[in-house]
Structures are given as C-alpha cells and as structure tokens.
C-alpha cells in the first residue's frame, strides 16, 4: 500500500513541556491506523498539528507526496483531512442538515441547494451505513448520533483522511460496534482513518497498524495482526525507571482514612465513582493507578470536600466527614492535578498563595498580620526551596516545578493526617519529580497517610505500599506492592477484566 501521510521529526513544545519529541509517523492509504498511548502521551497534540490547529516547532508533513503546511483547519480540510474531536463541534440549536452544511459552499452558493445536499447525504449514508435524521435538532440526538453527524460532516467534505480522537469514549458498547462496522466499510471504499485511543482492546479490534506514543516520544509502529495486548501494554506504559528512591521500611499505624461504598457524580450528573471502598493507615501510601477520566478526579474531590457525595461514607480518624466542608477538613492536604487552575491563584503573590488556606489564622483585631505572614512565608519558601524573585511576585510567573513546590509548601506544612496527591509529578523535570517523591515519603515517615493518584505506573510502583486500579468508576482489586505485577496492572488500567488476587 502506498504512503498517504508522513509526519517527519515533529517537535512541539508548550513552555517547558515537550508534548511531541521528534516524532515520525506514517500512514498508508486505505488503512485504519491506531494511535495508542496514555493520556498526555502526545497523541492529540500530534493530530492537532496535522489538522492545522497547532504549528509544529520542528519537522515537516508530507501528504499525498507533497510537502504541506496547514495554517488552520481550513487548509487541512481543503487538502482532504477531516477530524472528529473528542468534544464535538456542533451547534446544538441547529438541525443535522444545517450542521452538515455549515461553512460549506454548495452549488449555487450563496443559496443552499437543499436537494443536492439531501441526495449527497443519502448516498453517503447508504454507502457507509450511517443513518441520520436530517431534520432533527441536534439537541434531541444521543451522543452516538451526534458522532455520526460529525463523521458525516467530514465525509460530506470529501475527506481522504479522517482522524477520530477517542471516538469510543462516549459510546455504549452497541454504538461502538456499529461505529467499527462503519469505519471498516469506509476503508473499503478507499478512505484512510487515524484512530486515537488509549484502549488496547479497541485498537486491536479495529486497526490495521498501530503506532504507540509514550511521554511525547514514539515507541514504535506494529502491525496489528502481529502483536498482542501484552506487547502493547509494555510499549504503552514503558518500564524506564527514571529515579531511584528507597522507601525506608515502616510500621503502619492505625487507620487514617476509610472510604465506604462511595458514589459520586460528575458535572454532567452521571455517576463517575461507583461504590468505591478502601482504607489507608498511618505511614502508608495507597497508589491508585488508572487512566485519567475513570473517576479519579471525582473521587479525590469528594474526599477533599469539593464535591458532593451521593452515597457512602468518608471517615477520617474515626470521624464521619462525609458532609463536612473544606474548612472543616483541615487535616487533609490536597495536591490537585490541575495545579494552576485549582491549586493556585496565579495573579496573586507567592505569599498570598502560601497563605491561601491559613490567612484567617493571622487575624489580629480586624486586620491580618502581614508581618507575621511574611515571616512564615519566608520560612516556607526556604524550607521547600521555592525559587522566586520575592514573596510578592505573582505566583503564576513561577516555573512548573516551583509552582508544585509552592503547593507542597502550603499543603504539607499544615501537618496533615491525609495527603491526596493527584498526578503530583506530571510535567515536572527529573529534579522536580525527585523532590516531590521524597517529600511524600518524608510525610509518611512522619505518620501521614497518602492517597497517590497517578497515571504513571513507575511512580505508583516506586511509591505505593498498596496498589489499586481504577477503571470506569470502580476499583479493580487492591494488591500489595510486593505481589503486584507491572504488566497486569497496566492491563487492568487499559480495561482488562481479570481481577488480581
């Protein structure tokens, strides 16, 4: 088969983060090519570059034998590339017909040639087995139907290459089957498809070849017929232990946190945490492994007091805190995944951010004692080596590593009983990663309990005393670190069903 697309040596940086690190990517005409990797591996970034949303910092793109540069999605579309995003780009108040035609020039432009559109849509529907009700308002459609509209919209524009970003994330199993059927029939008539996913099974089921990315780098490309879940897991999660940190042996003390049959909803009102139970003791680190979006955020927010618990109980040091507010959970430290968006007020000063949770303690009469706050702030940036020009410079100007140190300084200095650390080292450089991990170990040595939520299996294996895998809102078995097996945990993370002993 001839090569349709080649991306050579693509580099894309966001500040200090290298999202795509010299990636070579090649797609052949008429295949379904799986792009596999964990969240944050760089899959979507790479495809956004191809689709003209981002400009690469280095590298080139060759499409149909010609070197191309897409300055915007418009260029990509006119070259014959379509993309269906994870979050659909449709106008809810318009009907299907209007959404399909939106931005497209039918014959007799500026008038819309309704008959021509109808015939064309009908032909496409028939050819690929995609049914849509052309005059139904988008708002009344199910998610699966919306996706079909997105696909049809792309086909309507005569694409040669169709990019699907995590298309199954929102679908029911039946919808997944019919999507796969449609994809197969599209390739039969010459269309090429790139299928972005982090689910192994789906990649194995529907693709012809698979390229695996990990931490912004390409691990390799394989033929689907010549690989298996085990090999793909290894490629996806990798095994390169960056750092060597020794955990001193400890005695675990009494139970600090117990979570009993916890049910929590996400923003859309669906259950994201479905009956989760576990406990953590003094001096213990419980690692929750899993791909982001499987209910981890809702779980940690519920424990931190930021999200309502629908059912179940949270018990901290023997006290039921299920209904308590954040202020009443001051024994819980929370290092959120979204450091800048949640853990920081970026336009405020370093000092104000250090005092975000404790400022009320510095009240003296009606005023706050800023002298005392500054004294404490200076101690904290010293102790946690936060590099900042001054206590009064804005916190948002700090580097990623220093922002995390600032958050650690604030959270850990309050002598918490429980520390929730969510993706605590994501995006940090080696020194930063090392620092954060050592701090967490220090904290458990002093008797705190740690709930470590991470997609990084190396991190889980390095730090955790027990490991739980979270998948689709449930916890799939809790295992002691010594008895846990790297491949098996990775397999469970990717949706494998087997329960480890």
């Amino acid at each position, binding site marked *: 088969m001839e090569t349709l697309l080649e991306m050579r040596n693509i580099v894309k940086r966001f500040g200090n983060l290298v999202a795509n690190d010299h990636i070579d990517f090649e797609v052949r005409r008429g295949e379904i090519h799986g792009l596999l990797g964990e969240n944050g591996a760089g899959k979507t970034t790479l495809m956004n570059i191809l689709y003209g949303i981002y400009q690469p910092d280095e590298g080139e793109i060759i499409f149909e034998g010609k070197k191309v540069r897409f300055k915007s999605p418009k260029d990509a579309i006119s070259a014959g590339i379509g993309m269906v995003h994870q979050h659909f780009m449709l106008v809810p108040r318009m009907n299907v017909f209007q959404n399909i035609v939106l931005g497209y020039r039918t014959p007799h432009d500026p008038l819309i040639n309704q008959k021509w559109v109808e015939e064309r849509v009908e032909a496409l529907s028939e050819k690929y087995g995609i049914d849509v009700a052309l005059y139904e308002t988008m708002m009344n459609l199910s998610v699966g139907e919306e996706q079909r509209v997105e696909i049809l919209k792309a086909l309507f524009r005569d694409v040669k290459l169709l990019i699907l970003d995590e298309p199954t994330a929102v679908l029911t199993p039946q919808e997944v089957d019919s999507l796969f059927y449609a994809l197969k029939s599209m390739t039969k008539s010459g269309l090429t498809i790139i299928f972005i996913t982090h689910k192994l099974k789906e990649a194995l089921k529907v693709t012809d070849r698979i390229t695996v990315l990990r931490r912004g780098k390409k691990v390799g490309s394989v033929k689907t017929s010549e690989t298996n879940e085990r090999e793909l897991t290894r490629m996806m999660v990798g095994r390169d232990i960056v750092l060597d940190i020794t955990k001193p042996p400890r005695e675990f003390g009494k139970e600090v946190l117990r979570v009993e049959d916890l049910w929590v909803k996400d923003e859309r009102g669906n259950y994201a945490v479905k009956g989760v139970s576990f406990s953590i003791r003094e001096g213990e680190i419980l690692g929750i492994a899993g791909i982001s979006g499987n209910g981890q955020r809702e779980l940690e927010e519920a424990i931190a007091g930021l999200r309502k618990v629908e059912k179940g109980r949270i018990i901290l040091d023997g006290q039921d805190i299920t209904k308590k507010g*954040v202020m009443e959970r001051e024994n819980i430290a929370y290092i*959120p995944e979204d450091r800048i968006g949640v853990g920081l*007020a970026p*336009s405020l000063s370093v000092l104000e951010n250090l005092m975000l*949770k404790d*400022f*009320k303690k510095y*009240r003296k009469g009606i005023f*706050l004692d800023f002298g005392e706050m500054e004294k404490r702030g200076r101690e904290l940036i010293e102790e946690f080596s936060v590099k900042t020009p001054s206590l009064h410079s804005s916190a948002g100007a700090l580097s990623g590593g220093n922002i995390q140190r600032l958050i650690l300084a604030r959270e850990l200095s309050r002598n918490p009983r429980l520390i929730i650390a969510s993706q605590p080292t994501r995006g940090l450089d080696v020194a930063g990663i090392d620092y954060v991990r050592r701090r967490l170990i220090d904290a458990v040595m002093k008797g705190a309990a740690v709930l470590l939520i991470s997609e990084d299996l190396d991190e889980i294996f390095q730090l955790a005393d027990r490991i739980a895998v979270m998948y689709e809102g449930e916890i799939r078995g809790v295992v002691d670190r010594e008895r846990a097996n790297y491949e098996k945990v990775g397999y469970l993370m990717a949706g494998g069903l087997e329960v480890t002993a």
Partner: protein
Amino acid sequence: MRDIITPIASIAASLVVVGILLAAIGINPLEAYAVMFTSSFTSKFGLAELCVKTTPLIFTGLAVAIPLKAGLWNIGAEGQLYMGAFAASVVALYSNLPGYAMLPAMFLIAAIFGMGWAAIPAVLRAKFDLNEILSTLLLNYVAIYWVEYMVYGPMRGKEVYNFPYTDLFPDIATLPRFFGTRFHLGFFIAIIIAIAIYYLVNKTDFGFSLRVVGANPRAADYAGISRQKVIIYSMLLGGMFAGIAGMIEVSGIQLRLRPLISTGYGYAGIPVALLASGDPLLVIVSAALFGFLYVGGSVLQTTYSVPVAIVYVFQSLIVLFIIAGQSLRRRG
C-alpha cells in the same frame, strides 16, 4: 510597573482620538485641552466644581471596583445611586427628624437602599449563577423610571410650578458647603471611605477572600473560601456606596429629587474602576480625572459649543483601550 502602562496609554490614546474628532469639527485640540485645563485648575470655582464632580465618581468607582476585585461586574451603580437618592429624599422631605439626626439617617437609608438594590443581582448570581452584568444593567432602568414616576406623581412638590421636582430639602437635610462654592462635605466623606476600603481590601481577611475569588474562583473553592458569601458581600458593599453617592448628590448638589439627578455617574464608575484596576486609592485619582473631564467638557460646551457628549466619547474610548490593552497583555 506594567500595571501603570495600560491606563496611561489608554488615556493618551483617548486624548489623541478625541483630539482628532475635535480637529474634524474645526477646533484646535491643543487649544481646547488647554482651555479645559485652565478653567478647572486656575480658579476657586473651577477647583470646587472639580471636587463636586469627583465626589460621586469616587463612590460609583468604588461601587464597581469592589465587586470587580471579586471578578464581578456591577453595571448597576447608576440604578443603585437612584435608589439611594430616592430613599434619602423620602427621609429628607417627610421624616421630620431633628437636625442632628437628619443627615445620618439619610446617609444610612441611602446606604441600605443601594445595598438592597444590589442584593437582587447578588443573590441571583450567588444562588442561581445568573449573569450579574445583565441583571444589574436592567435594574438600572427600573430604578431610574421609579424615580421619574415618583417625581412626576406622588413626590411632586407643591412649589415647583408643575415641574417634575420635589420641593427643596429643608436646610438640615443639606450637606454643609464651603468657600462660597458648591464644594461640600461629601468630598471628604468620599476620600475617607476610599481609604477605609483600601484597608478593607488589602489588610483584612474579607479582602483576602475577595481577592482569591477574583483571581481564581476554583482556587477559592479549593481553599474553602465561600464564594457565595464573597459574591453577595462584595455586591452589597458596591451597592451601598452607589446608594451613598445618590444621597450625596441630592443633599449636596441638587437639594431636591428630580429626574436625571445623575449624568451617568454610575456608568462612569466603570471606567473609573477599570482605570484604577480596582485599587480603592487609585479610584480617587481616576475619579478626579473623570471629574476633570466633566468640568472641562462643560467648558468646551460653553466656549466652543461642542456638545458635552464628547465627555462620554472620551469615557467609552478609555474603557475600550483598557480592555484592548489587557487582552493584548494577556497574549503578549
């Protein structure tokens, strides 16, 4: 230092654009600006008028600035001002309070009515997440027409020859004036309140919470700061000062209630607060600048017959340039 560049550049750019407009209608802009300047700063009456115009602008500037610190847009200072003026007028005309209690009572009732008027959008925003820009803006019309109705109807005075005015306030309900000009006590009250608010915002735990909510609402939730409380309190404070502005206008300048007691002071509070980037002490400075524009604008009208609307052009331009400058900075 970059914080200062945007407002100054915005003023300069607005001066240039207004200058072009003046030139287009055949007026030498430099000469016109010179006339504006000398008439405001070189005579006792000019300075007094400057302070007279600056006073309500300090209050309405604060009325916008405090919610702005919490990330909220109070577009309703105008309406809150009218409600304050209305309430103060009712007390002044119908209460028969003794002299020592009259002004304090007017002050208090105006504050309460301004607060009450701001409480509606505040609660709607805090409880139901209803956009406060729309609700505050629309309530302005209700308040303005309410005052109009009152002075055309129930509150119309007996000695006003059928004009839509109330009777003049009794002397005990008017603010003391000084130097034989219209310069009145309200100016000092405004300055004192602005300084107090500076301490409130920068030195108290409420101010701390306010700034966290404004900087990142999600971080406020995360730190356990009650966002609803901050939203409501900051809007109430804002409404209170707009209400006080209304009382000060009727009892210091107009000495009666009538339609159009405010020539857009409430709306002018928006550029005043923006130009000061919400800092209560800087609000005094930017209010003085806008006060100067009002005084200078009416001088332009008498000297060159330029409609006073040129002042509103200037105000709007400053808002535009500040917003443009901020978005440029965010990108740069």
